[in-house]
Every structure is written in C-alpha cells, then in structure tokens.
C-alpha cells in the first residue's frame, strides 16, 4: 500500500521557486512518470517525496499520514538514483543487503532476501562482484535490487536509464514495466525523455517551470494535449503548429487563415460550445506528422528539404510556401526525395486547435 497525496507542495531554493504548489494524488500500485524539460522541477519533486529535500510549503501524505517530517528511511519508499549510487567498495550482495544489515536484520535473513531479489533480476552470478566490474545495465539492476530488498511500498526512480545506450534503454524499460507488474507496488519515475514516459507510465505528469501542465494517460496526452506545451513536448517528431486566424466559424467546420490568401477548412466537433471559437480569434492549429500525408492535391504545399528513412517509416521535412517547416510521416515505401515539390493533405478527423493563450479548444479523434 502506498497512496501518495501532494497538497499544494512547493519548494523554494534561495528565492527561486523550483516547485510551485503542486496538487497530485498517486494511487496505490500506479506507475506514474514525471516528465518535463530540464529545470522543470521534476527531480526536486521526487526528492521531496523521498525526503531528501525539505518541503518548503504544502503537505505530503503517504497512506493518509502527513509525512513532511518523516525521515527518508521511515517513509517506506526506496529510491534508484540516476548515477546508481552503488557503494563502490562493497560486493553486489553487500550493496543489496546493506540497509537490512544496518537495520539489524539477522544475517541469514538478509542473505535470503538478497538471494530472492537477485533471482528476480538475474543477478545471481554477479553477487560477489564489485560495482566497477559490472556493465551499466548490470549496475542499474543492482541499484534496483538494492531497492527491492528493502521491500518498500513504493519505488522512486530518478532518470535511471539515462546512462545506458539506446538498445539497452529499450530493453530495461520493458523490464521495469514487468517488474512493476510483478511487484505490484507504486512506482514514481522521473525522466526528461517523453518516449520513456509514453511507454512506461500508467499516468504521466507533465511538468514545466515548477508547475503541472497536464496529468493523464499516455494516449490522453498524445491525442488530447491540454495546451501547446504538452502538444509540443509529447511525440517525436514534434507536432506541427500552424499559427492562424479563425476567419469564419460554421456549424460543422471553421475556416482558418494560415497566412494571407491561404485559408483552410477544418472540421469542428459538434459538441463544441458556441463561444469557444469566435471568428477573428488567433488560434494555433496542431497537426501531428501522421495527421498529414503526401497527396497529389492538398491544401498545403512546399518543397521537400530533408527525407529520413527509418525503415518502417519515412519522415519528410518540407519547407512550406510561407517558409515554415512541416513534418510529414509517410510509410516506408514512399518515393519522396529531397528537392521534390509536394502537396500535403490532412487526414480527416485528426488534429487539435489551441487558443491564443495556448490552451486547447478541441481535439479531433478517430471515431
């Protein structure tokens, strides 16, 4: 059991507000990822939950009890550090058993628990090695093992995969998700990498400049971003943004002027409240690369600047007539080449519209 509640939690370092009044509830057994650009306060928030930083304002409740003043080791949470933070002079087994030994647990019991954790993580052949003799992935596993041994009710991960290479990162993130399924405990995971957030989280918390931009499942954030920040942060390549002006708003669609003499008709959901989009309003149309396709005849056009062949798909970066770059995702057999003049069409019923303040007005989703 570990249900965490943050009520108006804030952190100030020397007059700098690193975290601004965060309200968040993390349910028991949830896998929550804090994601955001560097300096957004995600690590500070995690460290406050861990107890490694004092909470400047607000309250933290763990399983209903206020934990602001509870020392880190009494919170029932284990942390896995970005640098792994293994004790370099101890063997893997001693690293994993250190907390129990310090707590006075009998030696036989420590050994048994270490062995059990090592079995889960396939570390058994490495128990007698020193950290420096291990590869990055193995160290990562030992760090997780050290957390498991304490049998915590929650795990805190601080960018644990950022020191691994791309292939290993893919593998480890699958292992972590499986570990979450097996252990059935709460996990909070901090990363700056939106792909990790998307692939691992039950729920993602997007942070920016110390406050929460949006909380939701990966697909909610991808398909219904609350604002331009989330829309631009989640997804790679980035969503295309077209700053435009609503010229006319009808019942089923609106006319958007992307640039002078370049208008576009865009569907409007029937449920939209009448005042949400007024003619003349400045808006931003957001279309992901897969919401666009190369067609013989489309409302947008430009010259292909760069083509990236990824095998399974092709990305075309197109310089539009007005100078903006448009990214289009095409399939792996698309014959597009750099220098081609192309025309771009919109997949119907996809895309988002944002108001002048960056807030989402509506999202179109496939039926």
């Amino acid at each position: 059991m570990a249900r965490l509640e943050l009520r108006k939690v804030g952190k100030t370092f020397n007059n700098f507000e690193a975290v601004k009044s965060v309200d968040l509830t993390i349910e028991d057994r949830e896998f929550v990822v804090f994601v955001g650009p560097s300096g957004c306060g995600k690590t500070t928030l995690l460290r406050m939950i861990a107890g490694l930083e004092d909470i400047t304002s607000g309250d933290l409740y763990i399983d209903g009890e206020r934990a602001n003043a509870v020392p880190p080791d009494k919170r029932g949470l284990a942390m896995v550090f970005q640098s792994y933070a293994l004790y370099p002079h101890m063997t893997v087994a001693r690293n994993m058993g250190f907390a129990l030994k310090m707590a006075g647990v009998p030696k036989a019991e420590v050994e048994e628990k270490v062995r059990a954790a090592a079995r889960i993580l396939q570390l058994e052949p490495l128990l007698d090695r020193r950290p420096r003799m291990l590869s990055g992935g193995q160290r990562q596993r030992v760090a997780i093992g050290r957390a498991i041994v304490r049998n915590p009710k929650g795990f805190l991960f601080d960018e644990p995969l950022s020191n691994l290479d791309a292939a290993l990162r893919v593998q480890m993130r699958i292992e972590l998700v499986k570990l979450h399924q097996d252990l059935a405990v709460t996990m909070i995971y901090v990363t700056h990498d939106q792909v990790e957030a998307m692939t691992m989280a039950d729920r993602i918390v997007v942070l920016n400049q110390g406050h929460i931009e949006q909380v939701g499942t990966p697909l909610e954030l991808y398909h219904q971003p609350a604002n331009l920040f989330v829309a631009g942060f989640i997804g790679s390549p980035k969503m295309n943004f077209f700053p435009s002006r609503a010229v006319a708003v009808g019942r089923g669609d609106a006319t958007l002027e992307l640039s002078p003499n370049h208008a576009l008709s865009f569907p409007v959901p029937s449920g939209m409240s009448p005042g949400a989009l007024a003619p003349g309003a400045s808006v931003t149309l957001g279309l992901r690369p897969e919401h666009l396709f190369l067609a013989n005849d489309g409302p947008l056009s430009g010259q292909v600047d760069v083509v990236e062949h990824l095998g399974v798909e092709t990305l075309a970066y197109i310089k539009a007539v007005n100078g903006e770059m448009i990214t289009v995702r095409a399939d792996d057999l698309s014959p597009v080449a750099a220098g081609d003049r192309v025309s771009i069409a919109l997949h119907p019923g996809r895309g988002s519209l944002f108001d002048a303040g960056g807030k989402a007005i509506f999202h179109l989703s496939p039926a």
Partner: protein
Amino acid sequence: MEQEKASLAGTIVAWLAAFVMFFPILWMVITAFKTEEQAIAIPPLLIFHPVLSSFGAALAQSGYIHFAENSVIVSLCSTALAVLIAFPAAYAMAFQPGKRTQDLLVWMLSTKMLPPVGVLVPIYLIFRDTDLLDTRTSLVIVDALINLPIVVWMLFSFFRDIPRDILEAAHMDGVGPRGQMIHLLLPLAAPGIASAALLAIILSWNEAFWSINLTAAHAGTLATFIARYSAPEGLFWAKLSAASVLAVAPILIFGSLAQRRMVRGLTVGAVK
C-alpha cells in the same frame, strides 16, 4: 613528429631537474663512506675504498637511538592528532558546505603562508609558560597544527570526490551520519586518508625549525641530531655526512616503501 620533439625536450628537462634535485643526496651518501681526507679532496674522488668509520664516529657521539625514538613518536602522534581533527572538519566542509566554508578553507590554508619564524616568539612564550618546552607534547601539538591545513585540504578533496548520491542512498537506507562516516567515508576515502597521513608523517619527521627551537636534549628529534652535531676537533665533513645519512635513512626507507601509494592517492583521487 613536431609534437613528439617538443615533448622529448620537456621530458629531458624534467629528468635533468629530477637529477639535479637528487644529486646532493647522492653526494652526501658517497661522502659518508669516505674518510675525512677523501671528503675534502679536490677534485672530488669518485673511486675510493668505502669505510664505515664515519658512521661509527657519528653514532658514538650522541644518543642516536633516543633522537630516533623521539622522531618516531612525534611524527606518529602528531599525524594521528591532525587526522582526528581533520576528519570531522573535512566531512562538514565537504558535505554540508555553508556560506563560509570557502572562507574557512582559505583561512586554514593561509596560515601556511606565514613564515614560521614570524610566530616563533609567541609559540615559544606559550610553551614556556605552560612548561612544555623540550617535551614531545609540544612538538606533537605544533606538528599537528602545522600539518592540519594540508590534511584538512586533502581529506576535503577526497571527500568531495565521493558522489553525494552515495551518501543520499545510505540516508534512504536508514544509515545516519555516524554510520555513513564509518561504513562509507572511512573505507571509500581510505586511500586518501592513508596518503594524507603518510605525507603528514614525512613532513613531521623532516620538520627541523620547531624541533631545533623548542627542544633540547630531552625531546629532540633526528633533525636536531644533525643540527647539533659538532665534531670535537679537526675535519668533520665525512662524519657530518654520516650523521645526516643516519637521520635521513629511516624516512627515506619509509618514504620509498610508501611513495607509490602516496602519490597514487595524490594524483588519482579517491574513488576512481
């Protein structure tokens, strides 16, 4: 090509400098095995029949063993004292640095910039008034204070090389500051502590100024043994050389046994 030529020149300079620094020692050792007549021969004799008579004479004159014993006790005790004080001080400065930590470090190091001769007077008066002149205690205290800034600085450097994450992980593991010092800092900084202690022992052993000025027959170290050496009559270069070799020999042997470990500690850092 060009690159290599330039560094060849540099390497030669380095070796020459090292040889020049080493040369007096070589000469001293050679002279100690000469007779007094050979010692002053011009041009200097390079080939001669070595004799041990100078050593005999040097040992006969004064209580070599007594001085050596003082040297051992003073250097070990002063080092222990310095490390005991420096360990918690360096811990605080490295892991809980305040606004004034940098100032403190600067201040400690800047006391090394004072000429010892400048504070001879007050130190002498303090020890005279406390009846500690010519005692090992006074030398232990003085040597410990002299070496303290260096030991603090070295320990501080080694502690700073220990990633904070490791201490935070221990904190999460329920290990308090005492446990962290004993189970983590002590073993992790052990090479650094050893380096610092070895250096302090050597510096303390070689310290001549305070030994000469604060001690007499009772608490004198080997440094004073040479300084006070006087020949009853006639030529004394060979005998003085022999006495010097006797004073230097223990620390030279100790130093050559310890130097690799010490220099490794000095150049590589603690936890790499």
